[in-house]
């Protein structure tokens, strides 16, 4: 057991920390800052800040240098994730592109795709969105119905995507569409249990390996045929985006409508009809995420909750203290787990379905931490106006956000299925 980083990694940490100290405005450390500016303004601030970060050499930390990355170690990437969280850095404007699309393009993209996509993404010249979920295809991603029909050397795309992060600010969208007709009716679904964002691994539950075992999986396997991953220019008349207001009042997500949108045939990633396989590869890049960034963020949340409780004299209640302590137990376990994952990555071990465990641990812990916030603050937590300098609005806003994290990116139910079947080997 050796929990230290190499001198080279520690040197990287101190360089990064120095740059962040100098480049993150003090105002950003106030939790209410990002709610005090408009969506558009906030997005531009983030885009600009990331451009500067790129110019300073802090983009693509663990990417190969040939793609403009820094060629760093997994340890450096973990340090980067942790320091960004500690410094209150805003979430990347291009998170889904950087985490998912870029490594997929590096792995299976054409030379032209590599050239066209990776550099501009790293410099934030092109902001990428993900278009996977549909109103009738949430946890059951393969039920998607958006269609792409070849017309000369272009696909004509029609349909709807939902739960698209940054939909209002995106330039391009990597999206799954049905380029051959699906297996027909019987899948008319309304409403949506819809996973979104990162860690969208749920669909892996249907991967080919398990699909042969029983009729239901075979049926689903049939659904995977004829899907392609297209790279759609969002700045065209055939693409309309709408913000999706959430119960917190914010709109991190949006909807994307395609009406005869056009995509060049060369803008298909991984080959026509291979979309499901491409998506599985793409989602597998979540596996390297250790959870250290979540730990750093939620650990700070813990302290903020304690501070608020202290202001109301609720920090001395023995039972609430133990409830808080139980949350810290889970948070610290998340940290240990992150070190475990990082070790596996550094040793080049196959992480398999470990990301489902990481997701369960962080999302359930995060949600319960804010249930404890509710219990600690009691009736006073209902007030979101500042009272005597105590402003609970940001924490309350975050509490609502935690209700979504067990739904998107593969719901807790989907993750438990994956752990049961693929980690424990329980039968379908």
């Amino acid at each position: 057991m050796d929990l230290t980083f190499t001198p080279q990694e520690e040197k990287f940490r101190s360089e990064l920390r120095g740059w962040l100290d100098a480049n993150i405005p003090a105002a950003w450390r106030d939790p209410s800052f990002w709610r005090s500016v408009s969506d558009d303004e906030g997005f531009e601030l983030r885009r600009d800040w990331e451009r500067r970060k790129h110019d300073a050499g802090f983009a693509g930390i663990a990417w190969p240098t040939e793609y403009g990355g820094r060629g760093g170690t997994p340890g450096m990437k973990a340090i980067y994730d942790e320091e960004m969280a500690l410094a209150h850095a805003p979430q990347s404007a291009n998170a889904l592109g950087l985490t998912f699309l870029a490594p997929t393009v590096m792995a299976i993209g054409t030379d032209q795709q590599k050239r066209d996509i990776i550099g501009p993404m790293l410099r934030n010249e092109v902001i990428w969105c993900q278009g996977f979920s549909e109103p009738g295809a949430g946890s059951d991603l393969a039920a998607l119905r958006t269609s792409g029909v070849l017309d000369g050397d272009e696909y004509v795309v029609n349909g709807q995507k939902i739960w698209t992060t940054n939909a209002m600010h995106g330039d391009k969208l990597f999206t799954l569409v049905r380029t051959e007709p699906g297996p027909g009716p019987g899948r008319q679904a309304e409403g949506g249990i819809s996973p979104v964002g990162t860690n969208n691994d749920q669909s892996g539950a249907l991967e080919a390996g398990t699909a042969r075992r029983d009729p239901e999986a075979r049926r689903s396997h049939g659904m995977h045929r004829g899907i392609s991953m297209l790279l759609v220019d969002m700045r065209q008349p055939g693409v309309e985006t709408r913000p999706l207001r959430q119960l917190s009042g914010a709109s991190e997500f949006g909807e994307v409508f395609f009406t005869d949108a056009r995509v060049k045939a060369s803008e298909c990633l991984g080959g026509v009809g291979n979309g499901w396989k491409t998506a599985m590869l793409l989602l597998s890049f979540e596996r390297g995420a250790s959870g250290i960034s979540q730990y750093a963020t939620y650990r700070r949340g813990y302290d903020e909750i304690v501070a608020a409780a202290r202001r109301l004299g609720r920090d001395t209640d023995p039972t609430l203290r133990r409830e808080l302590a139980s949350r810290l137990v889970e948070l610290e376990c998340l940290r240990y787990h992150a070190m475990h994952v990082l070790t596996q990555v550094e040793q080049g071990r196959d992480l398999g379905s470990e990301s489902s465990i990481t997701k369960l641990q962080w999302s359930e812990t995060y949600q319960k931490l804010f249930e404890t916030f509710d219990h600690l603050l009691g009736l006073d937590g209902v007030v979101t106006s500042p009272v005597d300098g105590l402003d609970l609005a940001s924490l309350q806003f975050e509490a609502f956000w935690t209700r979504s994290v067990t739904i998107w990116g593969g719901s807790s139910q989907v993750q438990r299925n994956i752990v049961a079947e693929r980690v424990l080997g329980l039968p379908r």
Partner: protein
Amino acid sequence: MYFALTDEQRALAETVRDFLADRFDLTAVRAVFEDTAGDGHPAELWKAFAEQGWLAVLVPEENDGMGLGLLDAQVLARAFGAGAVPGPWLPTVLVGEAVRLAGSPAQRAAVLGPLAAGELVATVALRAPGGSFDQSGVGVTADIDPGGTRLTGTASPVEYAGVARTAVVAAKEPDGGIGLYLVDPTSASVTVTALDTYDGTTRLGALTLDGAAGERLPESNAAVLAELSRRGAVLAAADLVGTARAALTRTIEYDKTRVQFGKAVGSFQFIKHTLADLHVGVLMAEHAALYAAHAVDAALPDAALAVAVAKAKANDAAERATGAMIQYHGGIGYTWEHEAHFFYKRAKRLVGTFGDAGEHLDRIAALSIDA
């Protein structure tokens, strides 16, 4: 042995349900919920409440009320929870109870008749920020002044402080006791500060009293405050029970039809078992609210225990059922456009109202361990 609502009470529940479906459904709720600058007190709704007698339910017949009991009132509270109904019904009814329990004949005449008729919107201001719902949580002090009693201190959050024309304020008295006072919130020595809240089915404010005049309810004392808080807890519990049941029923209906992986979501065993457990929990909370209301009405020896049990259980059931409503509607339940957040946020607020779980569990422990 008859542990159930009477036919009359069942009919009342149905009347409210039908009324809300007809005249104040979730679309109407949404309008109030989203109009955060508004007073959250739709005049038409209030007028209808008065006409239906729903403000008069606990007012004695001699004061032009219906003279019914808490068991009847909890029928209303439960239906209002199920409909996520906004408006100052609960604080107004509790002012009526305070005056009925501790007021002079003159005060009863002055307050109860208008209150029953819908002419008086009122509220209760019993605790300071961070306080509990017993005498230790009172944050206002009463000073005996040559010109009458003067009240100083803060009560918050106070429901519908902005529209109430009378408030019942709890205050610590010079002799160490507790008194309840009728206060005019619009008077110069009272500052009403509107407070934001995430729950658009109510409106909150802080009441800051700076030597405000208060008219004492002559029979009030710490025991009356405790009784008032118990009655508040029963009605809040009933509202939570209605909220929880509505959340659960809507989730079950949705999961029967929402298809994923070629099956109804509600046919997945994990979801089935979760919903089954929730049903048992909500059913027990329904029983508990019923029993507590009856125990208070009939002054049963275990009334104090029953109220604490009901509020603790209702808190738990509502927290779980409304959280599950979001989770088991999937993404759609997390949107602003869906109604899940009305129930979720209302439950989250009411869980703290008239005692959170800790407060009531401590009471149960004292009654069952130290007794």
